[in-house]
């Protein structure tokens, strides 16, 4: 230690005085050259950390993010322009770039400690990681997207009509790309774990309540259907928000009556809410849909539009004693809320009664690719829209 201090003191003595033996020319030339070499080297090193090869030199990047982008348009497309990792994830502005590099030093620690070194660990962190990037894109208005994509250079007439409507509006508001286009280069995280637990939670809260024979209840989540009070094999599944009447109970099961419609052509495996309306109540196995002991036939009508014969059927089946809702409005309140929050991320959502029940199916199918809804929430929103569509609404268009 003492030695080190004396060395520093000696160096300081030399440092602090004009040089006696090295000429000023050599000192400035040497410093100048060293400066050039350093600057070049620094930039080369910085560039090296800005290459895809560097990014995927870490196992979790190579196995997850890098694999995922390969199925997207940013990897391979008709124009042959490809986005590499830094194109989207490293800012161009120097100070922001340095901040990004400093922030990335945290990833190095993650790599050393093996924070995301397995698929499971990566998946459990995916939402958190994605949210970091989403926050960045939200703040800078998706600047890195717009280094290539520019509203001013978009020819809206070349877009499909549906896309035009959305894109023109977005351009008007100078909207951030990722407001709608999340999950286009890497898999979306399971986002609506809150939403799934919402319906699941409602069901859980109602568990243990007693059931009254002769009373009607509504399913909250996808609910398995059984043949009797013991059989463990499913005959089919009820969708959420489906009405049934309890007609008996035994042990852990309820005997229920389901008044529905099916197409009297083919197996009729899908049970619908109403005549000629594509509102799914339940789907059955082929065997169950053919088992005459399970249902009673009712009215038969032909749908003029499709020429298909429809038949009312009343099924008697069994469900587990789980949480079921007595008040349908509670389910609709949740669905309405989920519809408004999920869909308004990208656009003002159309009024429920703007379309009829069958049109909503296609509309909804076209949109669900933009969001990541769990099955129950997906079903319940669609059903909410259909049940409040122009077919059923009093103030329809």
């Amino acid at each position, binding site marked *: 230690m003492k030695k080190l201090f004396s060395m520093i003191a*000696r*160096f300081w003595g*030399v*440092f602090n005085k004009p*040089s*006696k*033996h*090295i000429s000023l020319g050599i*000192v400035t030339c*040497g*410093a100048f050259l*060293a400066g050039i070499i*350093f600057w070049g*080297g*620094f930039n080369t090193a910085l560039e090296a950390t800005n290459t895809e090869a560097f990014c995927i030199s870490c196992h979790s990047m190579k196995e997850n993010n890098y694999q995922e982008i390969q199925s997207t348009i940013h990897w391979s497309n008709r124009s042959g322009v490809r986005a590499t990792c830094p194109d989207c994830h490293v*800012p161009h*502005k120097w*100070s*922001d770039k*340095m*901040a*990004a*590099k*400093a*922030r990335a*030093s945290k990833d190095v620690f993650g790599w050393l400690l093996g924070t995301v070194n397995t698929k499971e660990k990566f998946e459990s962190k995916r939402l958190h990681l994605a949210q970091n990037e989403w*926050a*960045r894109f*939200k*703040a*800078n*208005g998706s*600047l890195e997207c717009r280094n290539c994509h520019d509203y001013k250079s978009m020819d809206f007439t070349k877009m499909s009509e549906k896309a035009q409507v959305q894109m023109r509006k977005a351009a008007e508001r100078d909207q951030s790309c990722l407001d709608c286009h999340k999950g286009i280069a890497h898999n979306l995280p399971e986002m609506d774990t809150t939403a799934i637990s919402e319906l699941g939670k409602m069901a859980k809260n109602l568990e243990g309540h007693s059931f009254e024979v002769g009373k009607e209840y509504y399913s909250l989540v996808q609910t398995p259907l059984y043949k009797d009070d013991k059989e463990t094999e499913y005959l089919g599944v009820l969708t959420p928000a489906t009405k049934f009447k309890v007609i008996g109970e035994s042990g852990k099961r309820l005997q229920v009556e389901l008044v529905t419609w099916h197409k009297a052509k083919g197996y009729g495996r899908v049970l619908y809410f109403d005549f000629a309306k594509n509102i799914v109540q339940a789907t059955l196995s082929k065997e169950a849909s053919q088992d005459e002991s399970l249902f009673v036939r009712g009215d038969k009508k032909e749908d003029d539009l499709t020429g298909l014969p429809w038949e009312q059927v009343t099924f008697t089946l069994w469900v587990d004693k789980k949480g079921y809702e007595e008040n349908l409005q509670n389910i609709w309140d949740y669905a309405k809320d989920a519809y408004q929050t999920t869909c308004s991320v990208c656009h003002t959502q159309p009024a429920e009664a703007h379309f009829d029940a069958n049109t909503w199916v296609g509309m909804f199918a076209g949109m669900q690719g933009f969001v990541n809804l769990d099955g129950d929430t997906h079903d319940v929103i669609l059903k909410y829209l259909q049940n409040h569509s122009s077919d059923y609404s009093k103030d329809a268009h």
Partner: protein
Amino acid sequence: MKQQTSNVEVEKVEKKGEWKLFIFLTVFLFPILATVSVFGYGFIMWMSNILFGLPTH
């Protein structure tokens, strides 16, 4: 005569010391300081982003 040789000796040591420090500064210390200060700048930017929000456009 003896005085002179010792002066030459001292000068030799001084010259060696100057060269040693020159190489040390240009090759090691200053490049390291420069790199550290750039990283430090990045770190400050990062922290300020956390405190005052992410860069806007």
